[in-house]
């Protein structure tokens, strides 16, 4: 039987022979961190002694109200890397009653966990308890979960420190799941960190190796995370190592102020044009004291990113689990929200799914939105008359429907978002024809400046025009418009408009020909290339048509 006694020369147990060669003197060096000292004491002094039972004074180092003994016992239990000592029976020694400890010691919960015993400064009682240990009548901790479930260790009161802890815990948990060894740091010794880490990783068995995903989509991913150099960069690189289509970068910034981060972000944005941004919310020192989410750097960055291209997908990866953070970021434009410090490693799966999904979204949304923004830039048309209000209204309508088309295409809650988005683009064409053409008489149309309309017969080889005195179909209106402004008909553009016209009618009238598939079906089928090429063909038809109508000097 090897009984170890941890004391500060403040116990009568030193009189007993059983502890003569197995006592550890506890004295925290002047400038040493308490938790680091305790961790090192366990590693360098307690573990080599190979005891069978550990006696600890409640009060150590003459700081009676700190109850370092309770803290040290927690450290022993949480030091799972030392399996021969972490579950040993622990006997607390002191005059303190359980009632007193419950009232004044923060870490008293350990007293009610299995494998814990107490004795006062009474050598007869100590002898009795030692005899019981000799007979193996008093067991240690048999089930670590029964300890974890009964204890509570408070997080740091300071939000900044707590947030930093949660972030580091997430790195540790995720890296453990991914089988990555990160270099140790001083925070590893902190008692709250040890506790939370055990709590979060107890369900991860060393046999449960996480299979690195193979994300089939192509995407350029940018990480914006102030602690990217403290493990996140390595972790994500490992996570994407089997996904050949994923290009990963981290924003290199000092993360001092919002302005400096924006400046660094714009540089890398111009260089790599990211499809997906993994964004932490709290990025600067000031963020740690900020309770108003709208003032937090990450939150403000969402708006900047979305103003540059709303198709860029923003995945919030945060150590905050506040429902208000989720709500506020999603409302401000973030597309996904991943809670990094969740106890479950399912969050890694959730992140991978989000990236796959975001890659698919960004792939079609970014070029779609960029094309629409280019179209609107400096757009001007030949005026049909001198009425400024009518002309301004046309431009207003163009902006309104193009915004509506964007908002609809990126709104995943709208079941037929792609088809509807095309309908809104088509509305722009209708508004332009309304500006140039007017109903004349008996169903005929004329240009509003009195010029006549024609009936166009378009074939693969060219087109023929004849004077028209009959009702003009929508398609004939578009041909007239094109001819009026360009003095020719572009066969490719006309073909595109015809195809879009058919798609729109099929969608709106709900009569779908055989082999016809709505864009939504193509998207859901998983073949994103077919979906992307079809969608691009349809919206490009409208945009090319409108571009051809604008004044030559404003065409792009």
């Amino acid at each position, binding site marked *: 039987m090897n009984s170890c006694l941890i004391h500060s020369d403040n*116990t009568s147990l030193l009189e007993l022979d059983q502890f003569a060669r197995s006592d550890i003197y506890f004295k925290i060096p002047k400038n040493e961190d308490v938790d680091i000292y305790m961790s090192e004491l366990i590693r360098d002094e307690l573990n080599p002694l190979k005891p069978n039972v550990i006696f600890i004074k409640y009060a150590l180092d003459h*700081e009676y109200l700190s109850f370092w003994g309770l803290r040290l016992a927690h450290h022993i239990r949480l030091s799972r890397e030392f399996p021969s000592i972490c579950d040993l029976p622990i006997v607390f020694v002191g*005059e303190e009653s359980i009632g007193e400890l419950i009232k004044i010691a923060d870490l008293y919960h350990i007293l009610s966990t299995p494998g814990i015993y107490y004795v006062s400064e009474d*050598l007869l009682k100590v002898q009795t308890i030692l005899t019981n240990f000799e007979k193996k009548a008093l067991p240690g901790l048999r089930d670590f979960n029964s300890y974890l479930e009964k204890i509570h260790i408070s997080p740091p*009161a300071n939000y900044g420190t707590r947030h930093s802890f949660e972030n580091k815990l997430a790195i540790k948990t995720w890296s453990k799941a991914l089988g990555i060894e990160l270099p140790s740091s001083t925070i590893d010794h*902190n008692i709250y960190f040890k506790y939370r880490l055990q709590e979060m990783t107890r369900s991860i068995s060393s046999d449960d190796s996480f299979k690195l995903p193979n994300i089939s989509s192509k995407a350029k991913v940018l990480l914006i995370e102030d602690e990217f150099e403290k493990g996140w960069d390595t972790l994500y690189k490992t996570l994407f190592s089997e996904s050949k289509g994923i290009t990963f970068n981290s924003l290199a910034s000092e993360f001092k102020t919002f302005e400096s981060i924006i400046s660094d972000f714009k540089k890398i944005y111009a260089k790599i044009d990211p499809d997906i941004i993994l964004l932490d919310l709290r990025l600067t020192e000031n963020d740690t004291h900020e309770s108003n989410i709208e003032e937090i750097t990450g939150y403000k960055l969402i708006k900047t990113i979305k103003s540059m291209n709303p198709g860029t997908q923003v995945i919030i990866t945060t150590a905050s689990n506040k429902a208000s953070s989720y709500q506020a970021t999603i409302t401000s434009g973030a597309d996904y929200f991943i809670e990094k410090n969740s106890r479950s490693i399912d969050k890694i799966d959730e992140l991978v799914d989000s990236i796959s999904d975001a890659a698919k979204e960004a792939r079609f949304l970014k070029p779609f939105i960029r094309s629409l923004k280019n179209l609107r830039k400096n757009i001007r048309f030949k005026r049909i008359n001198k009425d400024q209000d009518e002309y301004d209204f046309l431009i207003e309508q163009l902006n309104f429907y193009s915004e509506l088309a964007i908002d609809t295409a990126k709104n995943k809650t709208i079941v037929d978002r792609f088809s509807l988005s095309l309908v809104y683009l088509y509305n722009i064409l209708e508004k332009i024809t309304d500006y140039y053409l007017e109903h004349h008489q008996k169903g005929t149309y004329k240009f509003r400046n009195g010029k006549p309309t024609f009936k166009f017969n378009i074939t693969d080889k060219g087109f023929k025009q004849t004077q028209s005195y009959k009702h003009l179909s929508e398609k004939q209106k578009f041909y007239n418009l094109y001819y009026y402004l360009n003095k020719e008909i572009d066969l490719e553009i006309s073909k595109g408009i015809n195809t879009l016209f058919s798609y729109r009618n099929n969608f709106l009238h709900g009569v779908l020909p055989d082999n016809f598939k709505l864009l939504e079906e193509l998207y859901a089928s998983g073949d994103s290339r077919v979906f992307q090429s079809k969608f691009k063909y349809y919206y490009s038809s409208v945009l090319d048509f409108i571009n051809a109508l604008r004044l030559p000097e404003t065409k792009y």
Partner: protein
Amino acid sequence: MSKVLLIEDRLDRMNHFLKMRNLDLSQFDILDTTHEANFLNIKQQVNEKDLQLFNGLDVLMVHQSAWSLDELKIIENYCESSQKTLILFTGGNTASHVSLNPYPLLRIHVNDFYSKNLELYLKEFHSTNESNLAILQYGKKWKLSALMEARNNIAVYLQRYRSANNFEARYSNLEIPDILFEMEETFQINLVWYKQGVEQNASNALQDTLTKLTAAIRSEIYQL
């Protein structure tokens, strides 16, 4: 005249704590607080190892992270040689810890530092002209620390030397915290036996003191 100097570089954080916790440090004329300009001036003087500006002070309260290791060493050496009390507060993740030798040093988390305990500590300092770090560390509970230490020491003493039946011989081995003598009246603890020297038959007196200490501890705890 100022006896305590609070050297803070992060005034925003300090003001945040003061406001949040409704603390008014301006009521203590024994306390001087740095502002940004004189913080830089102090830093320069520390680097030049010219610490005369600390000469009239008893206590230095210093934000640990504002200084390099070399600068901290200079401050610590100065406190050791002049036996001044040093309080290092930090936003890191350390637990509060006090050491009295070779000079009084308290390392404390910033969250615990900017608290009502700071006001209690300064009030006590103002009225007694003595720095009682236990007040800053434990607040209203501070007396328990001395009561519990005394109870433990007497219990250990009784166990160690009961068989020897000669208390007097080992009398020098019994330590009673100095502060406890100031609490004798408050808690009706009679320490005459200690002051006059432990006699052969002091066992009863020690046992009686133990009982009174336990009663005092319980009384203090239930008042928290």
